[in-house]
């Protein structure tokens, strides 16, 4: 136990040192000068990137959560298998292929990029919504029904609040994956920080490469923290790690 903790500490330390020295090196080499020199261009791409992610995630939430609710209703139980398989299929197709498919249908630009990202975010949210609702203790639902909650009240006051943790975790996963995947939008002319990353790759220019890639990484970390903060606000305190108490 103690050894394990020590080991994980050492690994963290090594990683941290590597990352820190990488930053020191890249700063000293002036690779981020581009962000300052072309700050207008940077902000434009950053905005594009964030817009793509936000829009696709919002669309995914608006579709996946109701879908998850629908397929966990007893009446539609049979649909669950179908929906999960479709969503799974969506996830198995490589993101590049989805982009390509979206492009053949919607042309190039912002739209196919958002569409592809949206498809890609559906599964984590849908899967977690379904798993979260299904994992609720049946005794809770029985108690709620037994004291006179209507089905809608059970959904809104019992099922969703008690499944909030997995649902939010699904959204968080989708956001983080999406921020990375959105870099591919460049390929269909969707813009975003991918423009600089791919320019950097093609011109073998570390300046472009890092001025695109590092902000994407930081954005993902920031978004992860932001969603965690929102989780604290929307998830009931009663669902925090439970402690067992004896009489």
């Amino acid at each position: 136990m103690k050894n394990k903790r020590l080991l994980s500490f050492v690994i963290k330390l090594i990683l941290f040192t590597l990352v820190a020295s990488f930053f020191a090196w890249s700063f000293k080499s002036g690779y981020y000068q581009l962000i300052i020199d072309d700050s207008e261009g940077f902000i434009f791409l950053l905005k594009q990137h964030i817009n793509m992610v936000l829009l696709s995630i919002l669309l995914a939430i608006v579709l996946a959560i109701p879908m998850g609710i629908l397929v966990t209703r007893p009446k539609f139980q049979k649909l669950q298998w179908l929906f999960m398989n479709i969503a799974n299929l969506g996830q198995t197709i490589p993101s590049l292929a989805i982009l390509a498919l979206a492009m053949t249908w919607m042309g190039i630009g912002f739209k196919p990029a958002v569409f592809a990202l949206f498809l890609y975010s559906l599964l984590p949210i849908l899967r977690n919504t379904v798993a979260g609702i299904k994992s609720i203790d049946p005794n809770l639902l029985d108690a709620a029904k037994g004291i006179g909650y209507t089905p809608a009240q059970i959904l809104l006051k019992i099922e969703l609040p008690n499944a909030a943790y997995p649902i939010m975790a699904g959204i968080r996963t989708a956001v983080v994956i999406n921020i990375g995947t959105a870099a591919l939008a460049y390929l269909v002319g969707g813009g975003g920080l991918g423009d600089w990353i791919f320019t950097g790759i093609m011109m073998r220019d570390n300046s472009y490469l890092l001025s695109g890639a590092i902000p994407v990484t930081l954005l993902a970390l920031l978004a992860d923290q932001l969603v965690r903060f929102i989780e604290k606000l929307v998830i009931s305190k009663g669902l925090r790690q439970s402690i067992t108490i004896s009489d």
Partner: protein
Amino acid sequence: MIKFDQVTKVYGDKVKAVDNVSFDVPEGNIVVFLGPSGCGKTTTLRMVNRLETITDGKIFVNGTDVNSLNEIELRRKIGYVIQHNGLFPNMTIEDNVMAVPNLIGWDRKKKADRYKYLMDLVGLNPDEYRKRYPHELSGGQQQRVGIARAMAADPPVMLMDEPFGALDPVIRTRIQNEFLQIQQEVKKTILFVSHDIDEAIKMGDAIAIFQNGKLMQYDSPSELLAHPKNEFVREFVGKDRALKSLSLHTVEDLISERMLRKLDGNENSNKKTISVETNLRDALSILLNQEADQLVVQANNKLVGAMKIDDVEAYLHQHIK
């Protein structure tokens, strides 16, 4: 108050979980549904608030066929307690207790008063627990909250499915006693599922004992113990039914029949003081465990006399067979 009229429940088209059951539950009584696992107790209970449909027959609550009522309205007027209390982990204790009043839209003042009354009733400090969550409470405390929640809108009828079944024996005994005390005050009509004969004897004004969905016997605990109707009931009640029925009688009952002895003056004799309200089973077990050779009986802090094993035995022979 509650009437079962030839009630049958068939699951699918094979499993006859409840088979043509009829009986009446008078107002203010606790009736315990007793029997081995799978005999249909829970199903019988759940048909009353229509958590299960009734395949055949009728159930009346307060003279009204439950099937003629809106099921949501019906459930809000019937208290419901289950074994694993079913408290909502996302809600505070106050919101849990006030779940039904919130559904039916009581005003703030009425809710606040009721919350305080209920928490006091079940022995929890209203303010201390108001903002806490179920996971911060022990099993016994959670079950008290579960009972408070069931009584929130003051329903005349309560359904309780093995409410104390998951508690350890010491806590269970304490909560049983507290609940009987609460019942003295609130006088609800209660259907109470149990698979424990001792609990049934203790809690029940009457016991309905089931086997394979059929009602075997419906009687007061003392009748059930004294005259089991058939082999199954005799078997279920146990060979020590005479002993069990002692718990239905108190030292006071014994005194009303027999004069107590004078206190044995022997210095060496081992004495223990008990009150007249002690039940005879507990009295006997003190004597048998050799905690004392004779029991000194007290009423209102005054000595009444002493009793020994022979007295209990004589009473047993006279009253219980």
